[in-house]
């Protein structure tokens, strides 16, 4: 079974600064997907960024980037130029790729990190 651990229950950052959220995971799989989801105070969860394990290049989406260290089973999220709208709970999540003839499966989530951006 896979496990995902986020060791930072809460983080804070000043507006325009950079913050890094940590995530580690445990799996015996060689191929898989990793995700960061954002849950703003209004509670609708949205996907921020994804990483395929077979890709060495770290994923980037505008101000969001990841540091994927496969051997260390580490997957951190860096938010550059933090904005007030980045205030949210962030979840790291793991997914196995589909086996033949099956669909994409379930997400395994970490505990979440509450990020507060201060003006």
């Amino acid at each position: 079974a896979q496990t995902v651990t986020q060791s930072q229950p809460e983080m804070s950052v000043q507006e325009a600064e950079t913050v890094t959220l940590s995530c580690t995971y445990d799996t015996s799989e060689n191929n898989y997907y990793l995700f960061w989801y954002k849950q703003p105070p209004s509670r609708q969860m949205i996907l921020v960024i994804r990483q395929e394990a077979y890709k060495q290049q770290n994923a980037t989406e505008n101000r969001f980037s990841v540091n994927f260290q496969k051997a260390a089973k580490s997957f951190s999220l860096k938010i550059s130029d933090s904005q007030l709208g980045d205030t949210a709970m962030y979840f790291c999540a793991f997914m196995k790729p589909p086996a033949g003839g099956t669909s994409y499966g379930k997400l395994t989530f970490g505990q979440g990190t509450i990020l507060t951006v201060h003006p």
Partner: protein
Amino acid sequence: DVKVTQSSRYLVKRTGEKVFLECVQDMDHENMFWYRQDPGLGLRLIYFSYDVKMKEKGDIPEGYSVSREKKERFSLILESASTNQTSMYLCASSLWTSYEQYFGPGTRLTVT
């Protein structure tokens, strides 16, 4: 835009009551999921469904059942609500061919 809606934002029920949580998606997604979210535990999968009338247990199915009679609707049923089922419940949906899950706004259920 994909829209996933849940029947209630807040719900208060008494111990022993039968509770129905409804989820509807409007993008013809094959897959639908029910998670519960608890502080310090993140989200945990209760049940999921890949097709109408199909269901599979997730990590914590005990005390819950589900129903999927139509493709767009996935219901979570608490047969006899207990206080330890007080939680936030999130529904999600996805295409058969996609890893991306779209979430509803959640239902905060309190069982007293």
